[in-house]
C-alpha cells in the first residue's frame, strides 16, 4: 500500500515517527516533493483566501499526492500535550481538506487528542487506530509503534543536540554529520524562531537558515531548546500558553535572550497565522524589556519577493556586525 505523507505542517517534527511506523507495517511511503511554486499555487487556488499560508501550502502538497498514493495520511492533531492545543485549524484539518478537494483518495484521519492528561497512552491508541487502516494484526501494529517511538526519540535527541530538521530529513544528513563539528564552532549564533513548517520549509523561508549560516553564524531554533528550559520560561507567563508551538517559540526566544546565547533573533511568521499574531507581540514586548538583543519580525505570504527578504536579512546581520565593532555591544542611545 502506498501511503502519501505531505511535506508540510508537522512533517518536520514527526516524520521519523510516521515513516518508521508505516514502514514497519510494510507500507511504501510517498512523500510529496519539496515545496515549489507549482505546489503553492495549486494549494491556493479555490481555497479560502484568509486561511494561513502553511495551510494553503499543505493543501497543495495533498493535491500533489492525490494522484500518486493509495491512501493519504492527514491526521487530526488536536493536542500533543496536557492542556494545550496546536491550533484550531489542526482540529479541523481533515474536514478542510476533504471538503475542498474533489476526487481525493481515501485519507487516514484518526484523531490524536492528549489535551486531558498528555499521556502516551493516547498516542498509542491513536497509532493503534491508524494501524487498523492497514492491518488487523494488533501485535504487529504495537511493535511498529514501539519502533516508531524509538526512532522519534533518536530524532528528538539529535534536534536537542543542535541539529535542525533540514539537516536530518532528506538527503543532507551525511553532510550535516560531517559539518556539525564546524557548526558548533561558530562563535556566534542567530536565533531563528517560528513555526517549524515555516522556518524549515526552504521555499517558504527562502533559505533563511542557509543564508544565516553562510554569513558565518550558527543557527539556534526552538527545536534545539531542551523541554525543561521551555517549561521554565513558559511558566513565567501570567497564564498558561495553550498553543504548544506558540509556547515553544515564545519560551525559546526568551531563553535565547536571557542567556545571551544569540546575537539576534529573527522571527519568521506566516501571513494569517493566528498564533504568530500573539506570539510575535509577546516576544517583542517581553524580549525588549529583558535585554537589548535585536529582534526582527519577517512576515511572509504568497507574494513575498525573495529580494526584499534577502535585503532585510543582510541589513539585520550587518547591523549586528556594526554594533559589535563600533558600539562595544552597547547601543549609543537608550
Amino acid at each position, binding site marked *: 500500500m502506498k501511503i502519501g505523507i505531505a511535506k508540510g505542517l508537522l512533517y518536520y517534527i514527526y516524520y521519523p515517527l510516521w515513516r518508521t511506523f508505516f514502514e514497519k507495517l510494510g507500507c511504501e511511503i510517498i512523500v510529496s516533493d519539496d515545496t515549489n511554486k507549482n505546489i503553492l499555487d495549486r494549494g491556493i487556488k479555490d*481555497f*479560502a483566501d*484568509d*486561511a*494561513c499560508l502553511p495551510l494553503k501550502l499543505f493543501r497543495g502538497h495533498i493535491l500533489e499526492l492525490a494522484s500518486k498514493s493509495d491512501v493519504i495520511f492527514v491526521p*487530526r492533531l*488536536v493536542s500533543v500535550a496536557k*492542556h*494545550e*492545543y496546536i*491550533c*484550531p*485549524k489542526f*482540529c*479541523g484539518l481533515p*474536514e*478542510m481538506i476533504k*471538503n*475542498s478537494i474533489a476526487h481525493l483518495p481515501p485519507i487516514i484521519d484518526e*484523531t490524536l487528542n492528549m489535551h486531558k492528561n498528555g499521556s502516551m497512552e493516547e498516542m498509542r491508541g491513536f497509532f493503534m487506530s491508524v494501524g487498523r487502516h492497514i492491518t488487523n494484526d494488533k501485535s504487529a501494529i504495537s511493535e511498529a509503534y514501539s519502533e516508531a517511538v524509538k526512532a522519534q526519540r533518536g530524532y528528538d535527541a539529535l534536534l536537542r543536540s543542535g541539529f535542525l530538521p533540514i539537516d536530518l530529513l532528506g538527503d543532507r544528513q551525511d553532510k550535516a554529520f560531517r559539518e556539525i563539528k564546524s557548526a558548533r564552532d561558530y562563535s556566534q549564533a542567530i536565533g531563528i524562531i517560528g513555526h517549524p513548517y515555516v522556518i524549515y520549509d526552504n521555499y517558504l523561508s527562502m533559505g533563511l537558515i542557509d543564508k544565516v549560516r553562510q554569513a558565518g553564524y550558527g543557527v539556534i531554533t526552538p527545536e534545539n531548546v531542551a523541554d525543561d528550559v521551555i517549561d521554565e520560561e513558559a511558566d513565567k*507567563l*501570567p*497564564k*498558561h*500558553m*495553550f*498553543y504548544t508551538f506558540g509556547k515553544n517559540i515564545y519560551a525559546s526566544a526568551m531563553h535565547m535572550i536571557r542567556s545571551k546565547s544569540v546575537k539576534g533573533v529573527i522571527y519568521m*511568521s506566516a*501571513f*494569517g*497565522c*493566528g*498564533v*504568530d*499574531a*500573539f506570539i*510575535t*507581540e*509577546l516576544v517583542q*514586548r*517581553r524580549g525588549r524589556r529583558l535585554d537589548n538583543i535585536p529582534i526582527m519580525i519577517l*512576515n511572509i505570504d504568497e507574494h513575498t519577493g525573495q529580494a526584499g527578504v534577502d535585503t532585510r536579512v543582510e541589513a539585520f546581520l550587518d547591523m549586528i556586525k556594526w554594533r559589535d565593532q563600533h558600539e562595544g555591544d552597547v547601543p549609543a542611545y537608550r
Partner: protein
Amino acid sequence: MKVTFPHIGNTYIGVKAVFDALGVEVVVPPLCTSRTLELGTRYAPEMACLPLKVTLGNYIESIERGADTIAITGSCGPCRFGYYGVVQQEILNDLGYDAEILILDPPQDGDFKPLFSRLAKLGGPNVTAGKAIKAGYLGFKIIKEADELDRMILKVRPREIDKGQTDAIWGKYRADVIKAFGPYEILKVIRRAKDEVRAIKIDKTFQPLKIGLVGEIYTLIEPFVNLNVEQKLGNLGVEVNRSIDLSGWVIDNIFLGLLGLSSEKRIKKAAKPYLDLCVGGHGRECIGNTVLYSRKGYDGVIQLMPFGCMPEIVAETILPQVSKDENIPVMTLILDEMTGEAGYQTRLEAFVDLLKRKREKERAKKHYGLLLGH
C-alpha cells in the same frame, strides 16, 4: 476600584445592572465608535483578530474615564480569545497605563479557587454570595429581555408600514438605557421600548425573505463591528434570525451545560456529517446552524467573521459543501478595520437580489410544473 468591561452586544446593559446592584463603581465604556476602533488598531498587533482591537479601544476609552480594573471572561483555547487578556495587559503596560485586567477563566480540572478569588476581588469586601447571586440573576434577566427586544425588532422591521419607525425607537432606546441606573430602571427602559415596538403598524400579508446569520459570536452580536447588518438587511425587507445571542449562550453554557441538556446537541448533530468535533469558538455551531436554517426553509445564510478568525476559517472552507448539499446560498462576510460600508451594503443588496430571484424561480417552477402535469 472602578471596574470596566468590554462591549459585546447587549452585555453592557446586564453587566452594568449587576455592578450597580452590588454597589461596585463601574465605568461603562462609551459605545463603540470609529475612535474606539482607531485606538485599538493603533496599538494592537496587526494580525490579531478584530475583537481584540475593538475591546482594547474600549479599555483605553474607559481608562480615560477613570477605570482601573478591567473584568473579562477567559477560556483555555483553542480559540485565541483565551489569551486576549495577557496580550492586552502587555500593551496597556507599555502604554503606561496601570489598569489591571482580571481574567475570569472557567475552572480547569474542577479547580474553582482561582475563579472565586478573582470574583471576590471584583466584588470587594461588602459583597456576599447571596447578594452576588441575586444581582447575577437580575443581570441575566435584563440581558434576556434585551435580547427579546432585539428579536422583536428583527421581525417588525421588514414588515413596518412607515419605514424608519423601528430604527427611531431603537436609537432612542440605546441612548436611554445607558443613562439608566440600577436593574429596575434599566428593565423599565427595555419594557417601554418593547411596548413601542409592539405598537408599530405592520403589513401582515408581506412574506419577507428569511436570512439566518451564523458565525463568530462577537461579530454577530456587536452591531458596531458588523456595521449594523441586521438593520441593513431589515431595511432591505429581510427578516433576519441570529443564530447566537447572549442570553442563549448563557443558558446553554452555564445553566443547561451543567445539566448536560444544552440545546447545542441539536446543532452538533446537524454539523456531524461535516465537522464532528469542537474547533474552538463557534466553528461547529456555524456549520450546524447553516444546516438547520436550510431545513427550516430559510432563503439564505450569511456567515460573519473577523479577519483571521481561526475557528471560522475552518467553517468557511467547509460551508461551500454544506451549501451545495443543502441547496441554500451562503455568503461569507469577513470584517476588519478596513471594511468599507458602501462595499458591504452593495454585497448585501446583491445577495438579497439573488435570493429574491431564486425564490421567484422556484415558485414559477412549481406553478409551471403543475400546469404541465409534472
